[in-house]
């Protein structure tokens, strides 16, 4: 299976070609730097993304408060994590930086608030 990925490491936007067979990388081509190569491999084998959402808050400045993960999370877990957060209800005041969930789904990140509520 061959993939063509537009690299997002820098504005150059190399279209990196990655070939995999049985879940293993066979070849990586068309990259211009080692960071691009590394990114393309990770993007195929275990893609991760920064994560952000909102959580309900009672008595706050707004009805919801924005949250983020303290590190990137696997792409495939983003929807479930969002669903998990839809069940969380906080009580104001909640200062920015408050941990809402600790190590949810064993993802080794925390979910923290990003504004005061």
């Amino acid at each position: 299976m061959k993939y063509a990925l537009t690299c997002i490491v820098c504005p150059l936007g190399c279209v990196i070609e990655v070939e995999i067979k049985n879940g293993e990388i066979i070849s990586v081509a068309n990259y211009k730097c080692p960071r691009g190569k590394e990114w393309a491999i990770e993007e195929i084998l275990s893609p991760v993304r920064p994560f952000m959402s909102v959580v309900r808050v009672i008595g706050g400045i707004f009805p919801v408060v924005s949250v983020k993960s303290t590190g990137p999370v696997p792409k495939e877990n983003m929807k479930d994590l969002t669903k998990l957060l839809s069940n969380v209800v906080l009580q104001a005041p909640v200062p920015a930086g408050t941990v809402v969930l600790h190590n949810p789904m064993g993802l080794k990140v925390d979910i923290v608030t990003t504004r005061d509520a």
Partner: protein
Amino acid sequence: MIYDVVVIGGGPAGLAAAIKAHEEGGKVLILEQAEYLGGILQQCIHPGFGIHYLGEDLTGPEFASLFIEKVRSLNIPYILSAHVMKIEIMLPLAKKIQLIAPKGTKDIETKAIVYTAGAREKHGFEIGITGDRVSGIYTAGEAQSLMDLYGVMPGKRVLIVGSGDVGLIMARRLSLEGARVVGVVELMPYPGGLARNLVILRDFNIPLYLSHRVLEVHGRGRVERVKMARVNSKGKTIPGTERWIECDTLLISAGLVPDVRVLESLGIRIDPSTGGPVVNEFLETTAPGVFVAGNSLVINDLVDYAVEQGERAGMQAVRYAKNGGLPSMNWIPVEKGGNVRCVIPHYINGENEVILYLRARKPVKDATLVTGKKMHKIPVVTPAEMLRVKIKKEDITRPFKVEVSP
């Protein structure tokens, strides 16, 4: 009380301007139309803010809070829910701002003004979308504010018009929160957003319709379906390519326009290519002592640039107030050469280092940016990414022309 500088708009550019003006010894007041400081940053809950300015990757609210905390710790006064009705220039150092705020109407006197009121979003009717006037039609920013400030889902099956960053970011937010984004429609033959945001389309299997436009909305009470069609290289609809897409929500992400109504009423000259005012390198408009920064000046991709402009405008506004005006100069016009859609500032004086912000018309690979006699090699230039370049005093020529060539 006569202020040195009144800042109109408490978003990133305005907060940066106010902090700078205060630090330079000015007596400053911030006026903000919303009930909170921080502007659109508060609803931009994704990361990507401050990478250049701070060397740190923050979410919008986190970036905003750095500036809000600073404003509070410096005791810079601000008025929230403050609507500016009118600005009057009585004399070069006497300006009057007419205000409606919760405590009533008020006239505020100031020597200089920094205008940082941001931009407004283009609506569907501005891009030729006709049809039924039903609920379920939002601009991308409205949807963002609904979801990320107020926790309300705008719809379940969403078609997005425009592949700029706001549209793509909303495609991700809607998909994550359980809506189905049935497509992103882009008039141009290439996508509008930054590469890191285009990944969103692949992540959520969202089809991108390049060289397409939305023509018509159909529904009873609520959006039910939307007609789109292919366009030719001139942007004209190709007959026979029309088709209907089922959806309950249409999100318009058709770009931003600097909000300059108050400035226009002052007779300030507007540049049609930016939609913002004509400015000199101090970011001063054609009305002496009225400075502009952020998205009111030019639509920026990065908050970092808005802050940089705010700091510049704030500093120069204090200088104006303290010295009774900025010295007259032999201004050199910044001329737009090939493949330059817009450039800020419009006039430079050749006495200082300046920062140019510009946008190309068309994408170019292995481009050369020519500024005066200086050449800058840039691997990839796209209209989606604003170019920022510092020009040294000794590299400023008369005349001074800027051009992006292959």
